[in-house]
């Protein structure tokens, strides 16, 4: 069974998804892991800033803002709208 995951920055506001993979390595990966972006964690997209970047995500009960470039490295599967 092959599933196609989408980057987190393509998920719409209000949708909830599950993290499946981090595309980065090294320092950037470490940073994402420190913020709680770990495989199988649930993330909800809360809102986008007026210019569309960055976007606020609810993860492990805390709100984290990621830039488009950072979020594009997080591959997710959408579970609900």
């Amino acid at each position, binding site marked *: 069974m092959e599933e196609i995951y989408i980057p987190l920055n393509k998920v719409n506001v209000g949708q909830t998804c599950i993290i499946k993979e981090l595309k980065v390595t090294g320092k950037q990966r470490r940073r994402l892991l420190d*913020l709680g972006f770990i495989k199988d964690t649930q993330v909800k997209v809360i809102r986008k800033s007026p210019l569309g970047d960055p976007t606020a995500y609810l993860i492990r009960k*805390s709100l984290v803002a990621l830039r488009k470039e950072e979020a594009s490295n997080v591959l997710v599967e959408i579970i609900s709208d």
Partner: protein
Amino acid sequence: MGLTCKSCKRKAILDIYNIVKANPNQMLVALAGNPNTGKSTIFNELTGLKQHTGNWPGKTVTNARGYFKNKDKEFILVDLPGTYSLFPNSVEEEVARDFICFGNPDVTVIVVDATCLERNLNLVLQILEITDNAILCVNLLDEAKRKKIQVDLDRLSVELGIPVVGTIARDKKGLKNLKDAIYDVCVKKIIPQPKKITYPKEIEDELQKLIPMITPLITNKINPRWIALRMLDGDIKILERISQNSYCKGACNHG
């Protein structure tokens, strides 16, 4: 106050190492934790100072220092900038990391936000890899109560192997317990025994090879296991900082 030239990087870091105990009765206590967990509020309540507090992260950019007394000991309290991780991404986080690693505090108080413990515990585990002498201070218990979150402090203490104190710093609650816990750890009445993280066999094998090689090269202040782990990480910066640090000891006098 924002970043000024003086509060930046090198000068600030040199400043950190300048903490000299006036007498052996003085104990060095570091306040660490994620951003916006109330470290500065606890700092003010314990020392009676009026260090600027505010409900936004990134307010404390360098370290502030204050004193308080409990029983027969005097404590130097250092308020560190908040950090999510000991793998720093900014100068402020670097300041906090360096102090915990090289400042050699007698005890590190890790302040966590009771409403999002899960995220805060990441830093706790990282600090416990460096030092055994740590106390967990679960702050903002009133906020947690409001959000209907219950924190089992005793269980947390058993799981982590360090003393855990619950506080509501804003209402001055639990601070007596915190002071007593700091005292007990400093006089070695309580010896925290944090549970160590065991890594997969490949990593542990390498660690066992590295640790005996590193140990004779460093002062006993720094945990060799932690340095071995950073070397496996490929963190060159930390190695530079260690050599800088030993250089720093001689150079600080005119800093």
